[in-house]
């Protein structure tokens, strides 16, 4: 990938978006039959599938927690999801993404309701562009609702990047590669209000003032995604109502 001379030109990004505009999003609930809950999601060129299994008895027994459900999260990339074929199996990046994503869901799932159980969240990245971790969290969140797992609210994730000195919402590949900083967020949204931060990472270089600005921008984007998550779920329930 060659570095473009400028990533922002006349207030527009190289894919034509304004600074605070999301990439197109498509959400399909209940995409899989076998899983207890599932979701297919596109965010720009990201194509991800999430499946939820559980709550079911945790096995082997020594992983059981007598006070609450154990949450597992597996972020996995298909070998063909990136430019250069990726060898199957987890690399260090996947391990870290799985860990922080798992912790985000631990904070919002009402896991005390299911002692000795395990809730498995599997996300497969079929095609990765920048932001695959945020796309996966958005899909997993919908899949959890589809599986009927009680949560404190919806988990909605989006990143903000610093590119050519300005902040942009939901960066795509070029902005991620050549930008100056990137912050993925996941927020707990309850009653149409952003309550708190469940996932937060950052790499790059930013002043603390820029970080405050980034939160604002991320919250704006998250609310838009949240509406789409809601609509997708609503649509599925309405269809079920019609068919049932």
């Amino acid at each position, binding site marked *: 990938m060659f570095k473009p001379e400028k990533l922002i030109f006349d207030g527009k990004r190289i894919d034509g978006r304004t600074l605070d505009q999301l990439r197109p999003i498509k959400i399909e609930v209940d995409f899989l039959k076998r899983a207890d809950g599932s979701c297919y999601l596109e965010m720009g060129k990201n194509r991800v599938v*999430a499946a939820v299994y559980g709550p079911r008895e945790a096995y082997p027994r020594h992983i059981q927690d007598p006070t609450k459900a154990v949450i597992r999260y597996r972020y996995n990339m298909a070998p063909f999801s990136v*430019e250069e074929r990726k060898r199957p199996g987890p690399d260090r990046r996947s391990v870290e993404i799985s860990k922080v994503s798992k912790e985000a869901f631990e904070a919002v799932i009402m896991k005390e309701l299911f002692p000795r159980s395990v809730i498995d969240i*599997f996300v497969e990245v079929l095609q990765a562009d920048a932001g695959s971790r945020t796309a996966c969290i958005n899909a997993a969140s919908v899949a959890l609702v589809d599986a009927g797992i009680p949560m404190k609210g919806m988990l909605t994730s989006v990143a903000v990047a610093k590119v050519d000195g300005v902040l942009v919402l939901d960066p795509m590949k070029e902005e991620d590669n050549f930008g100056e900083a990137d912050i993925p967020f996941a927020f707990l949204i309850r009653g149409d209000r952003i309550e708190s931060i469940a996932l937060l990472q950052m790499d790059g270089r930013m002043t603390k003032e820029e970080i405050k600005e980034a939160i604002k921008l991320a919250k704006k984007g998250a609310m838009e995604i949240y509406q789409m998550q809601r609509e997708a779920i609503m649509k599925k329930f309405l269809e079920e109502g019609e068919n049932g």
Partner: protein
Amino acid sequence: MAEDILSEIKKDYVLSKLRDEERIDGRKFEDFRKLEIKTSIIEKAEGSALVRLGNTQVVVGIKMQIGEPFPDTPEKGLIIVNAELVPLASPTFEPGPPDENSVELARVVDRGIRESEAVDLSKLCIEIGKKVWIIFVDIHALDDDGNLLDASAIASICALLNTKVPASRFGVGEDYELPIMDLPVSVTSLIVGDKFLIDPTRDEMSVGEKTLTITVDKNDNIVAIQKSGGYLLSESLFEEVIDASIRAARKIREEIIKYCSKIC
């Protein structure tokens, strides 16, 4: 335990229907489920296909790299077929390196493509003995509602049909379509006593994991066979399955061709 009882009930139901010469979803014994194909779903791959066989879903992506040929075929490209039965697709799949089931699946799909000479490997040589194209066929199971094998084989050949050799990206000429010479179709039957059911669903598989896969090329030749599962097969039933598989393969091949002609 509840799992076991459910499986027992399903098994009884499948068997009782069978006694009436029926399948639980109303299909004829020799019919495949509804087949849906979608290609070009992964732009970053050289070729790709999503295949739905009933509720079973598989994605196959094709990536190509330049590498060295085998010493005894210095002017031919290579195909490597790999399957990941990721736990997303079934609660019985486990993360980790491929187990015997995914290895078998990948190898049977591989044999169908290889033995039917579906891909003209002699068109994949860049520099004799030094540089050839390596085709990675990566099978990614999404939803296992039975017969992942046939779904994977169909998705693999569809993804290959959809593949452009990325010559320009690698600086070795212009992109060209992968030359496909045959359309092998694998047909898997569930063996139940002296009967057999083509394209079994997961519910049907509850009567016992006893299958026979016959892969057929465009001229009705058999190019691969795999008996899978611990059971005894009579010679006469084997011959019946071959005949039925040839018939079923023709229908599936027609569907693939129809889909391709529509999108090309």
